[in-house]
């Protein structure tokens, strides 16, 4: 009954194997097929857990989110480099909390990782729906609390945060 999922898992694993080995003789491809088959049979339920709603739309939206995230990462790096190198060292760090309206674990993980990657903020802890965020100065915290990023993540995972 799970033969479709096992097969898809096998295909993903075997593509990965080919990419990493880049050898096409019988020994490498053969051992790849055997290993991927065993792993696909044993752990296909790790990759496909339960019911997946709108998996393709979410993936597309996540890929569309990546350029914006990359832009934010570049800004974050320039910002931190400026604070580290300037003689007066303009930092004013604090830990603050805010409540998220995101429901699923995946969405919260995506938001937490995005917060850590973007300017001046690091997610310290998540307890239920409360995020503990360490900000290096006031401006990054204010930017985060405007909620642009939360809306973008909510859009990816089709959740309502308004």
């Amino acid at each position, binding site marked *: 009954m799970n033969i479709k999922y096992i097969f898809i898992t096998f295909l993903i694993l075997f593509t990965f194997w080919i990419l990493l080995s880049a050898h096409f003789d019988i020994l490498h491809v053969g051992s790849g097929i055997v290993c991927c088959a065993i792993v696909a049979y044993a752990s296909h339920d790790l990759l496909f857990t339960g019911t997946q709603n709108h998996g393709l739309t979410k993936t597309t939206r996540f890929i569309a989110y990546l350029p914006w995230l990359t832009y934010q990462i570049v800004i974050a790096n320039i910002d931190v480099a400026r604070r580290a190198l300037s003689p007066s060292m303009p930092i004013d760090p604090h*830990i603050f909390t805010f409540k998220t309206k995101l429901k699923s674990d995946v969405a919260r993980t995506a938001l937490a990782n995005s917060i850590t*990657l973007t300017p001046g903020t690091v997610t310290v802890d998540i307890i239920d729906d409360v995020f503990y965020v360490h900000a290096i100065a006031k401006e990054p915290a204010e930017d985060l609390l405007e909620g642009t990023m939360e809306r973008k993540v909510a859009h990816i995972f089709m959740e309502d945060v308004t």
Partner: protein
Amino acid sequence: MFDTIIISIVILLLLIGLFFTVAGTIGFVRFPDFYSRMHATGKCDTLGEGLMLLALIIYMIGYEGIFKGDLVHALFISIKIILLILFILLANPTSTHAIAKAAHDVGLQPWKKTDETQWMNDMETDEVTNGGETG
């Protein structure tokens, strides 16, 4: 001519990547406490290493692949480097968060320049609650 342009771009990207890595390291030394040092190392490494690996991809495809004519080999190595970039993009914030959470769980207090209430009052939104003191 072509190989000179490729090598120039590669060197430029390597130098920018080096700048961010060095800035992160200087920040690591200069910043006052554990949490703010997380910012320096966790962020600058992502872009610094990303740019350096991007330089390696351009070197492999442009110089080894197109200029020297071994394109298949170059493409396979480039894909491996792209996987490395994706791994860093995923692992860096996760490990930064894991270390910060460990520090927060044992109750390490962040270094503060200004008073807690003053900082909160300066923030414009009312969603904020005072949460820095929990351990």
